[in-house]
């Protein structure tokens, strides 16, 4: 188990180093996935299989997929790669890296070298409680530990499975490891935290929606005076789908009540070609009424 932990942590560190030094965003995302998976392995070896599963599902699944979507949407060319490569010249980051390596050495000395010589009383006390905790747990899980050294000597990756199985079989020994304990704590003393997390997620949803929607309305408000003077290609491109949609039936616009770009653009086209002004206004009046109703429903 120790060997797995050290190997996976080395993989995580190496992949993270590669994440922050790549110039191509997709390569960096691949290394980020590797790093997150190695972190999930670390969680598993630490005795937190539920957190490991959540790490794989949410981090390596959802968040990385979001990042991949944005990278594909923005479609950075070789320009940004050259720009980042120019930023990452060795003369720029050798000094900070050396300084942070010194800091890292200090931190490693403090963290690893402390149990050998405990200078402070507080660290001594925490070490003592830690040792007693560990001995308690090893005492409790003694019964299922007999088989593990043989398996781990044969196959190191599979040796984490008996730990999980023992955690499932006797939950007394694994009160810190089973997902049941996590769920009980999550909906017991931490239920206000769950509510706050749901509120935070709702706020994130509203913020993302607002930021994405604000851009559309601002683009239209920026293009509408340009469209009035009828000189910019932006105004023309904004008016082009409207002229196409002048031949569409009414159901097409009524079936999409949320899309604002179809409902706000017809005044521009009505200014530019006055022949289609009156049919456009008549045709889109139920659409705008539906939008008002939607906004009122969302406000309630």
């Amino acid at each position, binding site marked *: *188990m120790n060997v797995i*932990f050290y190997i996976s*942590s080395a993989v*995580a*560190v190496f992949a*993270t180093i590669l*994440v*922050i030094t790549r110039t191509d*965003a997709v390569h960096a*995302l691949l290394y*980020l996935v590797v*790093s*997150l998976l190695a*972190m999930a392995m*670390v969680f598993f*070896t*630490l005795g*937190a299989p539920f*957190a490991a599963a*959540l790490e794989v599902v*949410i*981090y390596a699944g*959802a*968040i990385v997929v*979001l*990042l991949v*979507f944005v990278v594909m*949407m*923005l479609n*950075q060319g070789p320009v*940004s790669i050259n*720009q*980042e490569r120019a930023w990452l010249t060795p003369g720029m*980051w050798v000094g*900070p890296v050396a300084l*942070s390596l010194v800091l*890292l050495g200090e931190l490693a000395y403090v*963290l*690893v070298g402390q149990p050998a010589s405990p200078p402070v009383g507080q660290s001594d006390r925490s070490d003592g*409680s*830690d040792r007693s*905790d*560990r001995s*308690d*747990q090893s005492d409790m899980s003694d019964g299922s530990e007999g088989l593990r050294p043989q398996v781990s000597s044969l196959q190191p990756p599979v040796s984490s499975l008996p730990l999980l199985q023992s955690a499932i079989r006797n939950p007394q020994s694994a*009160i*810190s490891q089973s997902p049941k304990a*996590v769920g*009980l704590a999550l909906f017991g003393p931490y239920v206000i935290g769950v509510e706050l*997390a749901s509120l*935070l*997620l709702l*706020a*994130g*949803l509203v*913020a*993302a929606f607002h*930021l*994405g929607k604000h*851009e559309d309305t601002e683009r239209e408000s920026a293009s509408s005076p340009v469209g009035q003077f009828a000189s910019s290609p932006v105004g023309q491109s904004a008016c082009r789908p409207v002229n196409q949609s002048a031949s569409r039936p009414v159901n097409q616009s009524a079936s999409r009540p949320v899309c604002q770009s179809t409902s706000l653009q017809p005044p521009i086209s009505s200014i530019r070609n006055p022949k289609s002004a009156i049919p456009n206004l008549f045709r889109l009046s139920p659409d705008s009424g539906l939008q008002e109703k939607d906004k009122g429903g969302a406000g309630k």
Partner: protein
Amino acid sequence: MTGIPPEHAILLAAILFLLGLTGVLVRRNVIFILMSIEVMINAAGLAFIVAGAAWGQPDGQVMFIFILSMAAAEVSVGLALVLRMYHCFKTLDADAASKMRG
């Protein structure tokens, strides 16, 4: 807790956090900055998990779940801001948005 000393796991969390911080400070692309922030949040979650495993309590994993939801909200808002910045400035350079104007 398994046979892993908690100091080594905390050291791993510190290394990952420092790597993420280095990425935030060094890179100028906003997407790389977001990725480095994800690495830092992940390292903080690892520290919580290590503490929960060392004390034998499930609270570390509960905190990790909260950190996870916070990271999800953060990355959604951050990516919306990235899209907005790209439509405003036509670039992903963080220095292009360094002026607080309008």
